[in-house]
């Protein structure tokens, strides 16, 4: 089994780009990643690519070059980007390949997603009676969590305030204006207890990462960032997930808890060894719950940690240093790869105005979404 290095990273800014297709944003990111790695497309031996709503990922091929390489399209819900990366890692680890690329891009229409019940194996009445909204799920999950763990609405607002503060320092972020906690709390209530500015929005963007074997990474002189662990896990019977007309009374672990535990084991590390983390923040509550699900604190400790600024850029455990989904938006195919891109920049000390103080030695990322899937990736300085 081979180690895996991330030798190149490229991003197309997230947000709204009226005159560009999702595909074009993916191509842009791929070209930047290749240049960053110092390689040509003709050197690439394999590709995994994902897009949820912007067409087939392998449509990048005529633009980058029809070199005959294997290109596998990945479609795996909100973990599409994370799954493309994981697939690429296994390809390198297998020993079959020395150099490959993971590409993710997307372009979603504005506003909440409107899913078709039948696509989810659900009866029509579930959508007709107004129960089939992701925003309701997020509201209900954090509502219960807050009541059981002593989390206040002020803490939800502080999470979003920090996201916009970091986004203002980040070139690839969508929302670049800071916004205070009071304004966040006072914005339109969307799904109690979550207000408009506590939710991320569907967006557009593209990210690509070039992966290499140790031999190739040394040859390229790019051994700075090594992959220590990468996992994808799906839901357990007792997990609370979106679009569930009923739940078992006996509750079980979340897919994030399963993916996190497996990734720590693979890396031979624990949460105490992590210097910086990018975790799924579809809304403010998700960041709070994922802090505990990824092992960074006990349930309920978030109230004090967030209030004391522990998760800010200058805090003891910086989280979502590029503003996360709240400031970048969520193009599904690219979102998980953006988190890894951000950790690569931070580990290189190349994150500019948002660089955390003291270059981190380890970076953790976790993407989560429908229908109950979580992907974790742990990077280390090479």
């Amino acid at each position, binding site marked *: 089994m081979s180690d895996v290095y991330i030798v190149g990273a490229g991003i197309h800014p997230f947000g709204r780009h009226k005159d560009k297709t999702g595909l074009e944003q993916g191509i842009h990111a791929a070209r930047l990643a290749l240049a960053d790695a110092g390689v040509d497309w003709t050197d690439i031996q394999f590709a995994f690519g994902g897009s949820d709503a912007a067409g087939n990922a392998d449509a990048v091929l005529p633009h980058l070059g029809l070199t005959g390489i294997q290109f596998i399209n990945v479609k795996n819900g909100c973990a599409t980007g994370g799954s493309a990366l994981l697939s690429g890692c296994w390809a390198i680890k297998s020993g079959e390949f020395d150099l490959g690329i993971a590409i993710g891009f997307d372009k979603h229409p504005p*506003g*909440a997603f*409107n*899913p*078709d*019940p039948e696509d989810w194996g659900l*009866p*029509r*009445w*579930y*959508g*007709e*009676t*107004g*129960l*089939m*909204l992701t925003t*309701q799920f997020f*509201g*209900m*999950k954090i*509502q*219960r969590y807050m*009541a*059981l763990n002593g989390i206040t609405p002020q803490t939800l607002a502080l999470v979003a305030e920090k996201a916009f503060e970091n986004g203002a320092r980040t070139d690839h972020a969508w929302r670049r204006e800071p916004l205070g906690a009071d304004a966040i709390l006072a914005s*339109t*209530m*969307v*799904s*109690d*207890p979550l207000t408009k500015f506590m939710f991320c929005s569907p967006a557009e963007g593209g990210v690509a990462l070039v992966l290499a074997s140790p031999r190739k990474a040394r040859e390229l002189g790019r051994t700075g960032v090594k992959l220590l662990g990468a996992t994808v896990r799906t839901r357990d019977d007792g997990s609370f997930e979106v679009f*569930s*007309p*009923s*739940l*078992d*009374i006996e509750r079980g672990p979340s897919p994030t808890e399963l993916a996190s535990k497996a990734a720590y084991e693979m890396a031979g590390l624990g949460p105490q060894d992590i210097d910086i983390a990018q975790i799924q923040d579809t809304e403010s509550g998700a960041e709070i719950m994922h802090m505990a699900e990824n092992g960074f604190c006990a349930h309920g400790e978030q109230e004090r940690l967030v209030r004391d600024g522990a998760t800010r850029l200058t805090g003891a455990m910086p989280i979502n240093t590029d503003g996360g989904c709240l400031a970048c938006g969520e193009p599904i195919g690219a979102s998980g790869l953006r988190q890894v891109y951000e950790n690569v920049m931070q580990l290189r000390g190349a994150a500019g105005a948002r660089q955390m103080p003291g270059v981190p030695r380890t970076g953790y990322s976790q993407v989560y979404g429908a229908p109950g899937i979580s992907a974790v990736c742990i990077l280390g300085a090479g």
Partner: protein
Amino acid sequence: MTKAIPVAPDLFEETADGVCLIGGRRRADGRYVFPLPSGASAAPFERVRLGRTGRLWSWTVQRFRPKSPPYAGPPESEPFVPYAVGYVELPGQVIVESRLKVGDFSTLRLGLPMEAVAEAFVVGEDGNKVATYAFRPVAEAAP
């Protein structure tokens, strides 16, 4: 007086005690599910009336009109009236998702005793009301 037509067959039924949801109980292990699986996935389950009462497990309020389709509530031309939704734990059985029939959203809290009722949520094109199930706080049930 028009009749309220259930939004789907075998979703809930009126009993002498009031409205019951119809669920499934898996013969192999006694696990309860809602709604009752149909078609090819129905075989492992027996049809059961679920308990009428339970406690609020979590809740939120739908503050904007959901997109149509799939939403089939009152048309966009009418002002949207926010509605509460939640999960209700039916003891010893299952936690079910439901619209909540409640006047004052600020009274909702975890553990609140709830009971199943029918609720007409829209008037169909044929002029008949379309009914679904809902849960309301037990305290508000008094006449």
